[in-house]
């Protein structure tokens, strides 16, 4: 059988090779690979699309191996496994303890804050963009948490559609 995966790798020498080496070791064949070093996502990582062929057991073992190596699998057979959503907070974002805001989002299962961008300016409020990665189906939980924190801290929240 064949399997399509989208992985994320760091932009450092040797990363691509280290991802590819377990494929042969575990009895699978590499059919295709799309790797564009100059296309990075917001985490600064490079998405790599691979198609592999082999027995079901070998392919599943390979997926486990990637997990073990800490390589993030974004998509498996066109099914998105992780999704990334953004939200903007406006108000006294810093003074209402931004660390606490992030920690409380991170406390949720399957939800991680992967980006934070804050603008402090001449205007009387600051604005923060928080990028959240979550397991599929966890997006609404993340948004609900953000909403709850925002209400408590009197921040305006602008969630993604």
């Amino acid at each position, binding site marked *: 059988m064949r399997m399509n995966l989208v992985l994320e790798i760091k932009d450092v020498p040797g990363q691509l090779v280290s991802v590819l080496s377990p494929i042969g070791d575990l009895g699978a064949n590499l059919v295709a690979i799309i790797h564009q070093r100059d296309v990075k996502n917001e985490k600064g990582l490079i998405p790599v699309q691979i198609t592999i062929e082999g027995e079901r057991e070998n392919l599943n073992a390979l997926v486990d191996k990637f997990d073990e190596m800490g390589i993030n699998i974004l998509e498996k057979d066109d099914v998105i496994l992780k999704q990334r959503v*953004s939200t*903007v907070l406006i108000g006294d974002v810093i003074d209402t303890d931004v660390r606490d805001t992030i920690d409380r989002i991170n406390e949720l299962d399957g939800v991680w804050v992967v980006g934070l961008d804050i603008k402090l300016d001449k*205007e009387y409020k600051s604005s*923060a*963009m928080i990028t959240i990665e979550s397991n599929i189906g966890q997006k609404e939980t993340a948004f609900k948490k953000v909403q709850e924190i925002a209400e408590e801290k009197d921040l305006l929240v*602008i969630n*993604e559609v």
Partner: protein
Amino acid sequence: MEECKLVLMGFGSVGQGVAKAVAMQKEKINDKLGINIKIVAVADSSSSAINPDGLDEHLLVETKNEKGKLGEYPEFGTDISGVDVLDNVEYDVLMEQTPTNIDDGEPARTLALKAFSQGKDVVTSNKGHLALNYQELDEAAKANNVMFKFEASVGGAMPIINYARDALSGNKIISIIGVLNGTTNYILSRMTSEGSSYPDTLKESQLLGIAETNPTQDVEGIDAACKAVILSNSVLGVPATYNDVEVEGISNITSEAIKLAKENGYLIKLITEVSPKALKVSPRLVKQGSSYDISGTLNMATLKTDLADEVTTVGKGAGSLETASAMMTDLITILRTK
């Protein structure tokens, strides 16, 4: 039906648009349907012009703009106004476009109920009475066996209510998410392209006549919330009223927040969400280049359906002839079924 006599209630920008649209389309309607439409009465807030043989559309517009009130219409001007007009003339369809009133829905509510009780069909562009009294109006229209059409109340020229009910009638509409207020979309678009602050951009919009002198209904999301109620009742079949909508406007949006969004591939839009779970108007992030990415005063809506998946409609959300276009479509629907 060989003849259709119209009464126009409200003669501001939309009312005048309807008069002009009737002048432009009546010959075509006569050719296609064999029905001669004529305007037999038009009322503004304090007076009216009434002639059972028909009024001249251009003279109506000219009288209103040059003399200030329709009571000055040559020969047929009267002091009769409001609901009394409906007792003083024989008519078939009421075209109602008085200003939206979100406090009590008047005078639109009384006018519609009066017309229904007289057995007349009603076309409206008004949102107030629909947002506050949808169920009452719907039941009254059904009880009197007349048609009540309000395509123009949501999204101006953009087809949405008839689109969902007729063009997508084979589907169940699961949710509607869209940009349903042109003024706020203009303000947010300008803040995005110019990097300007909210107060400055609002001022510019007021100078251009895009935002009203009192912009509250638009910028605080009230107008969009009324539309959410209308769509929930009429398209999703979920009874709702104005107080059920969770509303947050755009007056707290900073240019910095817009800049942050832009740098990360997003835009901030005032989004109306209508689903059985949520009835909500709030600023939201949308992806640049997505179907929500429309600029200026345009409106759009994405309808999520069970069979057709997602269908998106876009169009001009306001304007005299644009709003009149939706009302003419409703009028023709009525003419076809009579």
